[in-house]
């Protein structure tokens, strides 16, 4: 087996999702370009090229508003599942296990194994940072994408204002506007619904072979058991 094939076999989940992401992003770019140019023609304005569209604020806001909500979703899921439980869900810890857990269970400091990451072994501030690194990075990406959404959305909103022969708004004015919060909240509600329903439906439903599901024969009461 070649090295490439071995790599793909060992990382098929990441590779497939990476390809799906790129394909969907390219598809969004073409569909977005067609929609943008339809509006331009209807308004008696000039159409734009593919290159101009994918570097425009219009495309950026559509991408960023979805990215920020996805990272927010996973940030909340990662952090809230430390403290909150859902009895019977494979996505949850067992009731009574809420919290940061002991060093022994988390294999940090004196309990770290020889193959533990270095920052888990060293203790002190490095271990504290590493212990929250997943949530911190997801949170930072969420905030960065939300910021990009606010700036790109501001530009798109003002472009529309000028088309309507109205004054543009300041960035702060836009961040308090209905357009910004409508874009944010419509994405958030769908993410919260998807995560909540996943946590609850997985109590009663099964997907044989999936680590996101309990084994098919597990009882509805068993919590934190992954198939």
């Amino acid at each position: 087996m070649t090295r490439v094939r071995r790599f793909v076999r060992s990382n098929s989940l990441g590779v497939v999702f990476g390809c799906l992401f790129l394909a969907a992003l390219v598809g969004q770019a073409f569909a977005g370009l067609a929609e943008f140019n339809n509006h331009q023609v209807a308004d008696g304005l000039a159409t734009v090229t593919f290159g101009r569209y994918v570097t425009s604020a219009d495309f950026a806001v559509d991408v960023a508003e979805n990215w920020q909500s996805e990272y927010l979703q996973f940030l909340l899921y990662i952090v809230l599942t430390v403290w909150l439980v859902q009895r019977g869900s494979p996505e949850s810890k067992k009731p009574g296990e809420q919290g940061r857990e002991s060093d022994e269970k988390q294999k940090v400091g004196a309990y770290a194994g020889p193959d533990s990451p270095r920052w888990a072994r060293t203790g002190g501030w490095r271990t504290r940072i590493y212990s929250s690194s997943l949530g911190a990075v997801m949170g930072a990406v969420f905030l960065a994408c939300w910021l990009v959404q606010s700036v790109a959305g501001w530009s798109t909103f003002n472009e529309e204002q000028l088309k309507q022969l109205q004054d543009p708004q300041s960035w702060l004015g836009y961040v308090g506007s209905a357009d910004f919060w409508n874009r944010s909240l419509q994405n958030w509600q769908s993410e919260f619904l998807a995560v909540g329903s996943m946590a609850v439906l997985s109590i009663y439903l099964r997907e044989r072979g999936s680590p996101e599901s309990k084994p098919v024969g597990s009882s509805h009461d068993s919590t934190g058991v992954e198939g």
Partner: protein
Amino acid sequence: MLVMRPWAVGALAGAFVLVGVGCGSDLPAAASNVAERFYQAIGARNGAAACALLAPQTFHEVEESAQAQCATAILDENIPAGGEVTELRQYGGQAQARMRDDTAFLAEFDDGWKVVAAACTPQGQLPYDCKLKG
């Protein structure tokens, strides 16, 4: 001349660079230059030169409403003297040029910036009331 670009908030520079907001193919100066040339042409009673700087829909609207050639009809629109552009606000392919005596709206086309609306007076929250528009 004060040129307000969408990416003018320095503290947000990283995000601004990421999305390339306001980075049109032309510099903002191009839009204000077109606005000034338009008002200069009106001031010089050069209707043909002014009409050459109009967006297609606006050009069509001038001829349609006056039932006359744009070059003559535009001089009857009572467009005030614009003067120098004191503030330009550009977002994507749209811009607003404010002058001492008037406000104009422009859009970017394949052959450069064109005047979409002129002789505009503000109406509070409502769109500007423009004597000349497409």
